[in-house]
């Protein structure tokens, strides 16, 4: 079943077309990837899904409801949570309180206790021993996990991850990938992950969309997309080594 469907999304900034008629579908409980070079429109797409931008054309269907034009906090309450490429912790609050924000204001937790849920999330992401620390004191890698933890605390049905692997070393990438897979399996949460390079989502995504200059230039399984001519051209000379 399709949980998230983008239909002919257009977005212009001034005279620049950031997104041109982009279609994309995400299956429930799957992991999907969006890749593309800098300025391809990946984050813009996330901002449209989460309600920060209103698309100039097209609509977003989530869970069989049209969510285009809803406010970001309403969309979060319906079950779409996101992380930011440049982390945005509530710096002067303790890690635990940060997570509690997600637990209290995100999608309702049915009958679960928010505090228990926050603790569960912290344990899952390995931040439980940092719970009483101020968020400003976390290290870079911890902050990456922390962003995922806060989004996860919002109890989403679908989790949008914006370049969560960037800047991590290979060992950390492996750990992070394991964590993402576990979120997908154990919590049954659909995941859409943005990456700069195909390699990032290679091991994770069942389906990948490649964006270039705001246009979809390829879609399919990672290994199929990898072979596509136009994808090769989009990357060639810039990031080819990294992709291969």
């Amino acid at each position, binding site marked *: 079943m399709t949980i998230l469907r983008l239909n002919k999304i257009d977005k212009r900034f001034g005279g620049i077309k950031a997104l041109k008629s982009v279609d994309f579908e995400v299956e429930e409980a799957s992991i999907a990837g969006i890749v593309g070079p800098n300025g391809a429109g990946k984050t813009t797409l996330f901002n449209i899904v*989460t309600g*920060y931008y209103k698309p100039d054309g097209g609509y977003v269907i989530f869970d069989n409801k049209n969510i285009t034009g809803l*406010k*970001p*906090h*309403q969309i*979060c*309450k319906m079950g779409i*949570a*996101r992380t*930011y490429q440049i982390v*945005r*912790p*509530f*710096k*002067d*609050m303790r890690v635990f*309180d940060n997570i*509690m*924000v*997600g637990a*209290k*204001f*995100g*999608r309702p937790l049915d009958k679960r206790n928010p505090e228990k849920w926050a603790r569960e999330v912290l344990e899952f992401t390995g931040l439980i021993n940092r719970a009483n620390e101020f968020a400003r004191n976390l290290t870079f890698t911890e902050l990456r996990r922390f962003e995922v933890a*806060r989004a996860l605390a*919002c109890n989403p049905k679908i989790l949008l991850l914006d370049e969560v692997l960037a800047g991590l070393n290979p060992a950390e990438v492996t750990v992070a990938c394991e964590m993402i897979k576990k979120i997908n399996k154990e919590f049954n949460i659909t995941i859409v992950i943005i990456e700069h390079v195909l390699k990032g989502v290679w091991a994770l995504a069942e389906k990948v969309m490649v964006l270039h200059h705001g246009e979809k230039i390829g879609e399919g399984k990672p290994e199929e997309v990898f072979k596509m001519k136009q994808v090769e051209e989009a990357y060639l000379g810039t990031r080819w080594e990294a992709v291969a």
Partner: protein
Amino acid sequence: MKVLMALLSSKQIAALTLFIVVTASVPVFGGTYAASILIIVLSFIALVSAWQIISGYAGYILLGSAAFYGLGMYMSALLTPILTLYGAIPASAAVCFAAALGLGVPFLRIKGPYFIIATLALGELIRNIVTFTETNYFRTLGRITIMYDLTTILYLLIINAVAVILAVYFIKNSKFGLGLMSIKNDEIAAESCGIPTTKYKLLAFGITAVFMGSTGAIMASRAGYIDPDIAFPAYISIYTLVMGIIGGLGNLIGGIVSAIILTLLFEIFLSMGNPYPFGILLGILLILSVLLRGKRVTLLRIFRMQKITVQKPLSPAK
């Protein structure tokens, strides 16, 4: 009362009781002069505590307290003859709440330093408009208000101060307070965590205005006569902000302590016939509280400066 018992620790209840007993006994033992000073102290305690909601918690530094204080005064002056002071206080507070909601829609979209300047301009704007309407349409500069006796005013202000303190305390420990503090830290991230930021900011602004308005409403019946310069003085806006910052943003007790100390200091200087050294002292204290933040300076430890986070401002044009 039972609800309070359940929500507050025994220490807090003791402190609050002590506060009420001490303040309420001042007119009995201290005489009129002490009571009249206590009135000023209590009104600043209420103002600075109310200020904490929008500025200390939500991070929108308000430099326009005089706008709501003065609005409360004028509404009270108009309504007391009809409703008596006891009816006029809640009515004035309600008008302030409505005004804050109306003003908040455009103003709370302004970020950072711009918000501070804009609210300063707002207070001055309202003062100018009221002066103009009064002189040109009502052919008067001021209005006579119905005075109530000192003790009544004092007891009303005690109730008012305790109500603000309790309200701010409960907000701080509530889901609403958690939301406000997230907004102060990062409004965009707060919105994406499911916090209805616009609604929360408006509500915080409204509650701040309610208590500033109720304080002004009571003070109108103390003044006996009000005019725009009495009702909307810039120093109300400035002192409230300074007390809040020296006491610590979001630090309820710090704000109250600095309100007490600074008001008393001001009265001492005023009684010596020269209030200006107080202004100089205030400036120096404010500078020290910024420069010595985080350092263990005994004198200033109660004025512990907390990390100030203001909303991200716009970048300068290039």
